[in-house]
């Protein structure tokens, strides 16, 4: 087997032991790496129904055959566990030197199990694993702990760490790395905190195995050069992802006031142009060719790294239209280790619930100062509101009652990203069928809907587009893993990625092979869902009720009176299921599972719930 190291590091925090385990070539080819490895490992090793915040849960850190090798944007790491936010498999990716360092240490993945009896951090150096005292970092934010680690272990180390939110088991706590940014939206940071694991530090000195190192080096360097050129030619990095804020505002897709509104006259105050004007610097992940993080000084003079999702959700979604204040909210989320998308959604939900008489409190839309206080209350689980909101919008809505779940902006418990889709059916579907809950990573089809289809269409072309993009974004890029931005934003050709993969592994894969692997990983995640929720229905793939509510339609503008329609959305969902080979519940059929070589996994799932 070439390309993969062939080893997984298994660490047990309870008894402070570790071992190096090999995996087969068959496993490698079937699951590729990243999300594929994580979904398979967790399916095999976790019993359904376990407490995601108990010692039975496992944290997986997974890489793949091109991870850490110099090539466009290969500095990514997938982190995964049973999510405490959604109750089934959850994952995310983030940039970190762990990508190269763990591979240089000789591993393609790491499984962390058990629970330490006091705060620890792991120090991995090649074949050595140390369980070190984290007392000096415990209770501190991610900026402090990451810098503390750098001082002790050097800046070349790969670092994954959590803030107070992870320690306090906030259900949307992230894992952070100053070498990139944050990942693990569905509370993977809380899983780390539940294990009393503050950080993971990795350094390796071995060569990353490659079938044809010379070819890989040439392809990688050429690729880095080409991807950088494309970024510079396009001018994308001037505003990075936040250029889309102004566009969303123009086409009535911006999340304003807990997604009650789709545009706002003050949106220009937080748009890409303002961000570019205010920029101090840009940041990217290891091997990055197009920095997506733009830093500004926040209203307390700190350097805060912004992009569209965190501006959209911590800005317009809570009616804050002051970029420095948005920067401040973002800085606090990053430091506490809160997911910025969920934090913005939860704040918006709370203000909305107060307005609608479901919740009590003095927080109002637009009150950035109170929002700062609330973020700490959430991260520390302080007070009744902070403790409840720390469980995410859906769980809070279930306590508040009064139909507030209708406007908890989530799918399967995971808060949706910054696109207001009450008049954009295809993207609403993309959120609905995202395998881990309301994530934008899997598919984003809004420009396709407007330019190449009809916005109001619920036709099969939209379901097909969602699947096409899921295979690329949630499949190829999450399996390798690598950042999708060079392809998705500046047109770096997709065909380059099989070339990298083949140079690293000696295989002869085409994109079609990746689509099959992607479908397999998606089906694996759906079996996780079935096993945890045997009474699954297609309603689980619906976006929130407020997007279907005429009373919530725009009252002016080109989308006046338009909301999603239940029967049409359901038919769009069926188009998706038919094309995927899923049954009427949205679960892969036996025939589909067989085609993907998942007979054993199907048999395991069938012990808990019926398959069709």
């Amino acid at each position, binding site marked *: 087997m070439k390309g993969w190291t062939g080893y997984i590091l298994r660490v047990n925090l309870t008894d402070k032991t570790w071992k190096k385990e090999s995996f087969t070539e068959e496993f490698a080819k079937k699951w590729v790496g990243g999300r594929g490895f994580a979904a398979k490992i967790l399916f095999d090793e976790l019993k359904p129904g376990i407490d995601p915040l108990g010692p039975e849960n496992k944290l997986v850190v997974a890489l793949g055959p091109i991870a850490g090798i110099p090539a466009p944007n290969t500095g990514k790491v997938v982190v995964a566990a049973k999510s405490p936010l959604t109750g089934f498999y959850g994952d995310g990716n983030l940039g970190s030197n762990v990508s190269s360092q763990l591979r240089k240490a000789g591993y393609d993945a790491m499984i962390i199990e058990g629970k330490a009896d006091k705060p620890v951090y792991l120090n991995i150096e090649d074949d050595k694993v140390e369980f070190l005292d984290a007392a000096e970092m415990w209770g501190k934010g991610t900026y402090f702990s990451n810098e503390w680690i750098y001082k002790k272990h050097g800046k070349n180390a790969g670092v994954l760490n959590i803030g107070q939110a992870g320690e306090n088991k906030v259900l949307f706590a992230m894992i952070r790395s100053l070498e990139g940014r944050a990942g693990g939206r569905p509370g993977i940071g809380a899983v780390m905190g539940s294990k009393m694991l503050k950080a993971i530090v990795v350094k390796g000195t071995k060569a990353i195995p490659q079938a044809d190192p010379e070819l890989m080096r040439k392809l990688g360097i050429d690729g880095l050069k080409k991807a950088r050129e494309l970024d510079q030619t396009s001018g*994308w990095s001037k505003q990075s992802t936040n250029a*889309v804020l*102004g*566009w969303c505002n123009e*086409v009535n897709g911006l999340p304003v006031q807990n997604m009650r509104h789709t545009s706002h006259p003050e949106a220009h105050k937080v748009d890409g142009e303002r961000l570019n004007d205010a920029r101090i610097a840009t940041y990217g992940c290891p091997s990055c060719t197009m920095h997506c993080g733009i830093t500004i000084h926040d209203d307390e003079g700190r350097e805060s790294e912004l992009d569209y999702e965190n501006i959209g959700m911590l800005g317009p979604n809570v009616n804050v239209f002051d970029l420095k204040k948005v920067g401040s909210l973002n800085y606090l989320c990053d430091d506490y280790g809160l997911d910025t998308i969920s934090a913005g959604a939860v704040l918006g939900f709370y203000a909305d619930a107060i307005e609608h008489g479901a919740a009590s409190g003095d927080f109002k839309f637009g009150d950035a100062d109170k929002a700062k206080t609330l973020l700490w209350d959430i991260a520390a689980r302080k007070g009744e509101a902070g403790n409840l909101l720390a469980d995410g919008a859906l769980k809070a809505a279930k306590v508040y009652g009064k139909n507030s779940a209708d406007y908890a902006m989530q799918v399967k418990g995971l808060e949706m990203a910054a696109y207001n889709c009450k008049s954009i059916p295809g993207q609403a579907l993309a959120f609905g069928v995202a395998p881990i809950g309301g994530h*934008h990573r899997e598919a984003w089809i809004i*420009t396709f809907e407007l330019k190449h289809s009809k916005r109001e269409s619920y036709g099969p072309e939209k379901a097909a587009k969602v699947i096409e993009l899921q295979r690329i974004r949630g499949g190829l890029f999450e399996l390798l893993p690598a950042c999708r931005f060079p392809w998705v*934003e500046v047109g770096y050709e997709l065909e380059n990625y099989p070339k990298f993969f083949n140079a690293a592994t000696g295989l002869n894969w085409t994109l079609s092979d990746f689509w099959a692997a992607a479908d397999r990983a998606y089906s694996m995640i759906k079996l996780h869902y079935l096993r945890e929720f045997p009474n699954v229905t297609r309603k689980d793939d619906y976006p929130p009720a407020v997007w279907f509510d005429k009373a919530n339609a725009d009252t002016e503008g*080109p989308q006046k009176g338009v909301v999603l329609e239940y029967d049409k959305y359901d038919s769009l969902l069926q188009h998706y299921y038919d094309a995927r080979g899923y049954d009427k519940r949205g679960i892969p059929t036996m025939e589909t599972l067989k085609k993907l070589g998942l007979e054993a996994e199907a048999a395991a799932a069938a012990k808990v719930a019926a398959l069709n």
Partner: protein
Amino acid sequence: MKVTVKLIGPLIYEGGFSEKTLTLPRAMTAAELSAFVKIDKKRPTIITRNGKAVTSKDKIADGDRVVISHIYSGG
């Protein structure tokens, strides 16, 4: 004929403005207006007129608000 044109993202730096009201010398299609404000024809764009997407051949009318954007992909 007067129209308001808003450019999004990197097009601002290509066209040299963010938003302005223009007096057009003649009737134009969306593609012609895009060229008129010096957006490279080779660059894939999405154009909306009064909030709704139009094709390159659609005509622009007096008083329209036209937004020309790089094609985004949702990050």
